[in-house]
């Protein structure tokens, strides 16, 4: 099994199929759709194989031993390049307990988004090739272990997204696409600057054979820092690590998004077509949280621990502020967008706890948020397809007309605000417990508990206004879920209940990694102190 380069396959299969899709004549829309669906099904199968072959007992964080399904080849290798010496970039892929759940999530969400794209009928070819390109970018971010490679995939995500919103979006699509692109590009620039700084401050190998490195694992080893001259090296007394940490955090925070960098999200969601909203909320927001845990924390352990309170503060602001803003929204899509802001606050709070419980909760919350929010956007898509409306006050009493739809929505809503027995409860519980255990974030966790109330408030209020009460006569004839929609919602509802009742398959994957990360952080912190 391990002979096959599974990670390369799952990442580049969509790219290969972009070519195939481009060869299909534009007139054959269905053929294009079927081809794209086939890719995502293949990816699902591959991720199933990965899950099957995953070794739960592997421990460690950002060490060579902790990664599985590793593929490492020399990619770019230029010798005697003036003062740089050897310029070396590896094609280095691997997954551990942090990235594996997100890979499963990505393949699932992209699969559902493809099904949901069936209703796209303008420039089908362009849409699906961009969607496949996006797919490669997202997968690549989660599997690459070389910062150079990571950054390429990171940027690869932006471009298709820009066009997908800008061409297939709603009335204000140009504005939203531009805002999304520029905003995230600002983040990317910050990230790039720090990456280059890191590259020039660390050397892998010893003595004369040492070279500057983009290798994440070598960078995670503080001892590889250059003693003199590396301005992001721990050993340089005049290092700029403090600013680099903040720049990197902001860069990733924009993607999460964290208050006050969140305003691109509601606009992008409102204008994006349903499948793109699904991908955006389901996967793209996780890139930020993933980046913080994968890159910021192991590379800047001292500030990660010292500044945890601020990370947590922004998490709490996200939770409360997002929930309050969500309650006032009239557009359901905007409401869900703000609820995403609120739910991603839990990720920040869990990360800020800097302990196994909190960080596992944060990763699990990313996974769960992907599932629940994807279903929420798909659900909005269902009524939007039928009525071309999505105002909270445009409906009323839909429960009498669309009982199954109402049932699915009920489960998704209650899962979102953390009803026990459904998935998000477990992750929110872990985040709260982790944050409460850590003395730094204890008070923050107490304040964040308001989110439990506020979350229920805006979702139930929406339930009440959209689904209950007298049926609005205009919508008396609405049809309940179609077969295609059944296919979309069945796996989502199943996963929401399954991981609510039995979260261990995912948690057992996450906790060993987070456990090791915690020891890495605390060991280093104690060392510094």
């Amino acid at each position, binding site marked *: 099994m391990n002979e096959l380069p599974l990670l390369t396959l799952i990442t580049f299969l969509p790219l290969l199929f972009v070519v195939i899709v481009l060869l299909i004549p534009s007139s054959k829309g269905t053929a294009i759709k079927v081809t794209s669906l086939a890719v995502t099904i293949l990816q699902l199968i591959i991720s199933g194989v990965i899950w099957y072959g995953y070794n739960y007992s592997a421990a460690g964080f950002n060490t060579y031993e902790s990664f599985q399904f590793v593929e490492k080849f020399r990619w770019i290798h230029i010798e005697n390049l003036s003062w740089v010496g050897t310029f070396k970039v590896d094609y280095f892929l691997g997954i551990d307990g942090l990235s594996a759940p997100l890979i499963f999530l990505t393949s699932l969400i992209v699969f559902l988004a493809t099904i949901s794209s069936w209703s796209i009928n303008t420039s089908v070819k362009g849409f699906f090739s961009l969607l496949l390109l996006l797919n490669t970018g997202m997968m690549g971010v989660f599997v690459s272990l070389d910062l150079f490679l990571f950054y390429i995939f990171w940027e690869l995500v932006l471009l298709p997204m820009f066009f997908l919103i800008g061409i297939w979006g709603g009335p204000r699509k140009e504005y939203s696409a531009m805002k999304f692109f520029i905003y995230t590009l600002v983040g990317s620039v910050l990230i790039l600057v720090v990456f280059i700084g890191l590259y020039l401050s660390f050397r892998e190998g010893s003595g004369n054979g040492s070279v500057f490195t983009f290798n994440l694992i070598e960078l995670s080893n503080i001892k590889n820092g250059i003693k003199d001259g590396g301005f992001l090296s721990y050993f340089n007394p005049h290092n700029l690590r403090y600013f680099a940490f903040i720049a990197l955090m902001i860069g990733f925070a924009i993607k999460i998004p964290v208050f006050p960098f969140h305003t691109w999200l509601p606009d992008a969601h409102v204008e994006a077509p349903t499948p793109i909203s699904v991908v955006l909320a389901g996967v793209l927001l996780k890139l930020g949280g993933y980046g913080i845990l994968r890159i910021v924390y192991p590379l800047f352990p001292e500030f990660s621990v010292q500044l945890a309170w601020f990370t947590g503060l922004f998490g709490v602001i996200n939770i409360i502020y997002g929930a309050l*803003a969500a309650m006032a929204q009239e557009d359901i899509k905007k409401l869900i967008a703000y609820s995403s802001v609120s739910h991603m606050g839990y990720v920040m709070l869990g990360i800020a706890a800097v302990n196994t419980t909190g960080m596992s909760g944060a990763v699990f919350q990313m996974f769960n948020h992907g599932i629940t929010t994807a279903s929420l956007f798909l659900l909005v898509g269902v009524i939007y397809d039928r009525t071309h409306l999505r105002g909270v006050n445009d409906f009323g009493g839909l429960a009498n007309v669309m009982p199954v739809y109402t049932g699915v929505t009920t489960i998704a809503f209650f899962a979102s605000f953390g009803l026990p027995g459904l998935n998000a409860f477990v992750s929110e519980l872990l985040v709260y417990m982790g944050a409460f255990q850590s003395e730094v974030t204890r008070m923050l966790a107490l304040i964040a508990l308001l989110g439990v109330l506020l979350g229920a408030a805006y979702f139930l209020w929406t339930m*009440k206004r959209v689904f209950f009460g007298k049926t609005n006569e205009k919508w008396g004839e609405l049809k309940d879920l179609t077969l295609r929609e059944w296919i979309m919602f069945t796996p989502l509802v199943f996963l929401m209940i399954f991981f609510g009742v039995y*979260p261990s398959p995912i948690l057992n994957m996450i906790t060993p990694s987070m456990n090791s990360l915690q020891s890495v952080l605390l060991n280093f912190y104690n060392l510094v102190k």
Partner: protein
Amino acid sequence: MQPQIVINLFLSAVFTPLAGFLISFFIGRKLSKVYYINVIFGGIGLALSLTALYLKLQFFPHENWNHSFEWLAINSAAGSESFSISLSYWVNNLNVIMLTVVNIVAFVVLVYSTDYMHGDPDIHRYFSLISFFVFSMSGLIASPSLMILYIFWELVGFASYKLIGFWRHKDSAAAAQMKAFLMNRVGDMMFFIGILIALIHYKTFDITKIFEYVNQGNLPFGADWGLTLLGIMIFGGAVSKSAQFPLQNWLPDAMEGPTPVSALIHAATMVAAGVYLMIIASPLLNGTAAYVVALIGGISAVYGASVATVQTDIKKIFAYSTISQLGMMFAALGTGSVYFAFFHLVTHAFFKAGLFLTSGSVIHSTHEQDIRKLKSLAAFLPVTTAVYVVFALAICGAPFTSGFVSKEGVVASTILFGLINGNYLIAALMLLTSLFTAYYSVKVWLVVFRKDKADLPAESSHHHEVSDENTAAHSDDDHGEHHHHIHEHGYAIKLPLIVLAVLSVWVLYVLNPIGHADSHYLFPYLTAEKLGSSAPADSLYPYSLSEGPESELKHQAELITPFAATGVTLLGALLAIILFRMKKLTPDPEGKFTRILYNGYYLDYFYTDIISPLAVKFTQLIALFDKYVVDGIVNFMGTLTVWISTAAGIFDKYVVDGAVNFTAWITDKTGFAVRKIQTGKVQDYLLFVVFTLIFLIVLASI
């Protein structure tokens, strides 16, 4: 007899409703009468729990079994914070009895519902939700882990939410279900904080382990206030779930749900879950926390009972009465008598479920629930009237009813508390509650059920007339139309009422109704040490009527109580009767004071008309802030960039590009000048060639 048998029976009883739920949920739509499956599973659950109860009390009266399976585990290398959430269950006398009570009421309500809900298009949804609720409630009872308890705590809230809003087309039901869930969430937040406090301090969710730590003097935050805080936080959950002051307003609104639901969830079981929680958590209560519990209970008791006296909706009367009775349980609990709190919970479950089912029978027969429009029902609904009398006597605490025994105990423990502490506040509140309780029970009897000689002949003759000619069913006369349809429904309605009425008779609980608690059948199984909490955390039990050594004060309390309680009850009843005779007992809420009472001291207005709109305004403010300030800054940055780039563009156009264009201009002009040589004529070119050649030759020859 193997203990495993009892445990298996117990667990089967817990999971039977889940099976019922799954079956009817998945195939409910396909089959028309599938809801009988729920009834059958309810019956199986009841049989299992009764058997478990019998075997447990018969063979293992002194044993507590506690088992757990790991559900999710977080292992930490640091070691200090690894923990796991266990799917744990315990079997002891208390929760076996509780489970049996829940199953009895549930089965009775399921049977009742087959008639009551007959013909509803969504009947299978109703029954599957009821089964789901029973499962959640059983799960809540079955676990000693605060976390698992919290999970089921939320799930019963969810079931309650769905069932309050069962009639989805009603706007009022939609509002009520949301209110119920949100007000419960406030308390749940506090409960959750309590759980977190316990977790960080004791690293466990298991309440029995927490007791051990507390008994060893290991207090949260190392101080007594920590224990107080923990107790009050856990009580916060109970306050909202049991609709206690100040989070009580959701319960009257919850009456929007079908009446059997109100009987099961909002009278007998779910709201009692708060009391149950405090009973199992009682070893955690220290003096301060216990007094808070008693005080909140006392206030709620008087609040509920006083507001119930002027309500016009028959279900709301009973809803407020539930608040008041639950308050009495908390008062007993807070004053140390855990046993009587539980005992009152049990008796109240039966007679209050009975009262709700009685009102359900009235509503089902008359399609009316406003007591101003109901009259002389005794003439038409004999069985309903008869059972109402039993239930009303029980709730008043009249002798020879179960309510007498349990209420005496409650009042006695508060009086004992007063005798020991010199603080008679709680006792006074209890007596006031008894007064109001008697008043509204008698009032409902007088207004709704009593045969009114004055207008009965006219009524009945009218009744005759109409029934003679069936076609004239919709007569113009309001009264006639009401009473024409009135007839009692079948055995599915009557039998549950009779069963509950029988369960409200004293002999099932104690032979000698005025005897000491020792003589109660259940008491020997429910002493503190039988419940696994060997020693009380703080000075809670010295006040207890039932625990601890005999004392002079206890005798005094037991002596005073029957006279005080019965006297007050009689006073209340007499007041109602006298006012009625004086024709002053009008069901209409008139007068300033009555209006205040009718509106529940305007607490509801405070929440719905002040707090809620303010909150919405605040969120709108936040949204505007987000739109114009946060996003405004972003857009301003964008605009600023555009300005700067415009300026740069102008510079570029006129300065940078200007230089380029100047060069081009020069080139152009030069080219234009030079161009003239290019005539395009061969001869001209040739001439150039010749002259150039000559020039070159001359040059070469020099």
